[in-house]
């Protein structure tokens, strides 16, 4: 049931300190005091404020008598200028720590603000791996979605608004100092958001599992996350206030985060980043649409692992071809059952865009950990099939 690993290659496993459990966000003031925060910048977005999760944090800060500044002037797929605006406010308000409350966008934005402020550099200068010289101010993440796992990962994805490209900042310095993970915060998500983020978690687990940088530890997390998503995502949507499914989805997201943060991703994310950067399309949906064709492309190179995934989700076939098709069918069924039914063309992607999108995707660092190194034409074909 377990793949054979080459232990001669030494591996590292990097996760932040995190607390997982309902209501744990109420401990936020303890950590603000521990990190000697005097003036906190709360990075969030209007939706989260509306859902009341920012207020939960402010309530605790008020009790602790800590001053705060709210920064919510940001959009999905956070842009470089939004980050720099946050840096300006962080500096001018004399803030000394950051609390990110929300999904991937506020958390990635908060990471960018932190490193840009201490290093006095533009956020785009950190593009690449290990390009951040100095650590950021203390960062507390309180995720309100189950999927992005920015509260776990050493990734921060920021859109370069000039080049219309998402850049990846990979560094230990963007790992939060503490994450307070409570599934209760995900009960306010819409069905669409639950679906999109849930599929994002599934893709994280899929890509980390078959990544050429996977390790026994990342495999354990990834395979368990795939299992949890298949068993709980639809039920979470059907019973949005049932904390059982929400907790399982949050666990799936966290495990998938631990996996992809250390094993990285593959062509689905490379291509989704390209779509997000170039056309500002939602990350979860793009992932959801691309996964099936990516599995088809990758299957040959990592059949053994895909077969284990298949067995994990209850596929009984023995032949590779059958397993592959059943696996793709199960993914398609899940996607459609949670309501993601459109195609890329429905989201405005034209055939003419494909060359450009593939060009950006082939340069994405996620490509290098894909089980097989694709040609640019391979990526073009996958885009075409997904149109």
């Amino acid at each position, binding site marked *: 049931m377990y793949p054979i690993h080459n232990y001669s290659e*030494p*591996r*590292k496993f*990097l996760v932040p300190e995190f607390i997982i459990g309902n209501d744990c966000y109420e401990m936020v003031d303890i950590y603000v005091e521990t990190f000697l925060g005097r003036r906190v910048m709360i990075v969030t977005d209007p939706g989260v404020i509306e859902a009341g999760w920012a207020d939960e944090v402010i309530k605790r800060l008020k009790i602790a008598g800590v001053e705060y500044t709210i920064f919510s002037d940001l959009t999905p797929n956070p842009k470089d200028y939004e980050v720099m605006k946050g840096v300006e406010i962080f500096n001018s308000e004399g803030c000394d720590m950051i609390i990110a409350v929300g999904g991937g966008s506020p958390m990635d934005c908060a990471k960018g603000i932190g490193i840009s402020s201490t290093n006095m550099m533009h956020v785009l200068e950190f593009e690449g*791996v*290990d390009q951040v010289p100095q*650590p950021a101010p203390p960062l507390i993440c309180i995720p309100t979605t189950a999927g992005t796992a920015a509260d776990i990962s050493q990734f921060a994805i920021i859109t370069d608004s000039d080049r219309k490209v998402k850049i990846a900042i*990979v560094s*230990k310095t963007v790992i939060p100092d503490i994450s307070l993970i409570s599934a209760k915060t995900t009960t306010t998500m819409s069905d669409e958001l639950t679906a999109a983020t849930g599929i994002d978690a599934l893709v994280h687990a899929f890509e980390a599992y078959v990544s*050429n*940088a996977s*390790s026994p530890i990342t495999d354990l997390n990834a395979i368990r996350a795939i299992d949890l998503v298949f068993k709980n995502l639809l039920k979470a949507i059907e019973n949005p206030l049932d904390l059982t499914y929400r907790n399982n989805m949050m666990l799936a997201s966290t495990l998938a985060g631990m996996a992809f943060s*250390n*094993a*990285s991703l593959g062509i689905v994310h490379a291509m989704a980043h390209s779509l997000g950067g170039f056309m500002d399309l939602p990350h979860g949906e793009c992932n959801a649409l691309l996964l099936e064709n990516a599995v088809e492309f990758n299957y040959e190179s990592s059949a053994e692992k895909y077969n284990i995934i298949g067995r994990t989700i209850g596929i009984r076939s023995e032949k590779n071809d059958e397993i592959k098709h059943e696996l793709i069918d199960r993914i398609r069924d899940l996607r459609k059952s949670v309501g993601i039914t459109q195609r890329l063309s429905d989201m405005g992607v034209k055939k003419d865009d494909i060359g450009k999108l593939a*060009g950006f995707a*082939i*340069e994405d*660092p996620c*490509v*290098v*950990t894909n089980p097989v*190194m694709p*040609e*640019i034409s391979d990526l073009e074909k996958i885009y075409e099939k997904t149109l």
Partner: protein
Amino acid sequence: MKKHSDTKSVDELRNKIIGLGDKSARKSYYPQLQARINELEIAKKKAEESENRFKILLNSTSDGIFIYYSENGKLYLANETACRMTGYCHGDIENLSISDIHPLTYREKILKDFEIMKNGELRLLRNVPVKKHDGTIIYCEINASSLKMDDQDFIILAYRDVTEIRESELRQREIEKKLNEAQKLESIGIMAGGVAHDFNNILSVIMGLTEILLQQNSRDEKISPKLKKIFEASTRARDLIKQLMTISYHGNDEKKPSHLISVINESVAMMRATTPSSIKIINENPLCHDLVMADETQINQILINLFNNSVYAMPDRKGEIKIAYSNEYIDESSLKYYPLLMKGQYFTIEFSDNGTGIKQEIIDRVFDPFYTTKPKGEGTGLGLSIIHGIIKKHDGNISVESEAGKGTKFIIHLPIYEGEYMETKSDSTQINKGQGRIMVVDDEETLAEVNGEMLKLLDYDVTVITSSTDALNAFKEKPENFDLIITDMTMPELNGLDLAREILGIRPEIPVILCTGFSDQITKESAMTVGVREFLNKPVTLKNLAATVEHILSSE
């Protein structure tokens, strides 16, 4: 473009992603923190050292440094010298404003000056009075500059104590004034003396001829009284000339070691007789050294003049005149006050009265000749300048202190004579005739004739010659024909002294009398070494001539 096609770069990137790149190694920020702390420690130490150096520098200067806030004048910092200078201690001084260390009356002005300095123009303030903690005033030179520290404007002031320099400058000015005064008096004296010399010669002729006429017409009731009046008037004129000549420093005098207290006592006794009895005269007679090389007549003259002045200063003839004596050693430090004196032991006379005093604005002029406050006809204005001249001739000093309405005090310093006191006999006053062959030499014909006539009157055998070369030739021809030579000093070609030298070269034992006028720069000592036997002061009187000639010829 396919960036990731190169296997090597793909492997590298993958390695980095899975956290095995060089830069992925977990960083401990402790060393960085430690280094930063060390940096701060070093910076702190340097700051302390720098502050120490600044303190040492600040406190080593002899100037008082004050730093104050330019906006409100409050002191920010003062150095040790500033504290010592003003007598405040640290802690107290920082509570003051800059104007507090100046006298009340000066504050407004100094604040105005500082206001100008604030505008950046560097300025030096001179002789600014500074009020010390104990209230005493010192004078400072102030140098200012401005300074910006921590966004605050400051003014740095360097105070230099110039109190002593200022005093010595004032003293120096006083000394210069005194020297100028002395110089002025000297030149006036020379001028007066010059006039007196010529006048003296004229007077000699008048008096000589009058005396001769008097002798020849002593029984003529008609002419004799008139001649006597001419002689009396001439005598008064001669006395005035004598006084004029006393003003100058080169006049002849009869100095000898004298005990001045007894000399002054005699004068005082004389003045007592003529001073109204309502004026009290206190003459203290303490035990002190009073032996001074002095011309007693001139000392007497001083007393008479001082008495006259004091009595005049008591319009209601009531008051007190006090004469006191003491000894004073004039050393280096007291020379400041008496720049004309030499170091040494002095006999000091203080002559004071409680009369009307002298107004401050004219006190500098009282020794000027012909300067007088008396109405016309009551005084010549020569009194005090004569005193000044006499004292000058005695190598002494006279100074005056006076306050209008309270009285006047003259302080006279005369150098103590270190030699021995000698008794001298007073000359007889009788005119005696005698016998002898006398050669009279004077280039001024009338004078020569007058002297010749006087000697003839005394029955001497006289040869009058009006040229010194003729005289020498006459003597060379028959040296044995003369018993005595009387020659004038100042003559063309061969002066009196040279003639005496030539004559004495031929006949060393022959007596020579030298007649000297006021301007003759000759000391008795140098004339004596040539062999001159005696001196006669011009104008030569019959009495004097008779006594001198008789004395010399009788001792032959």
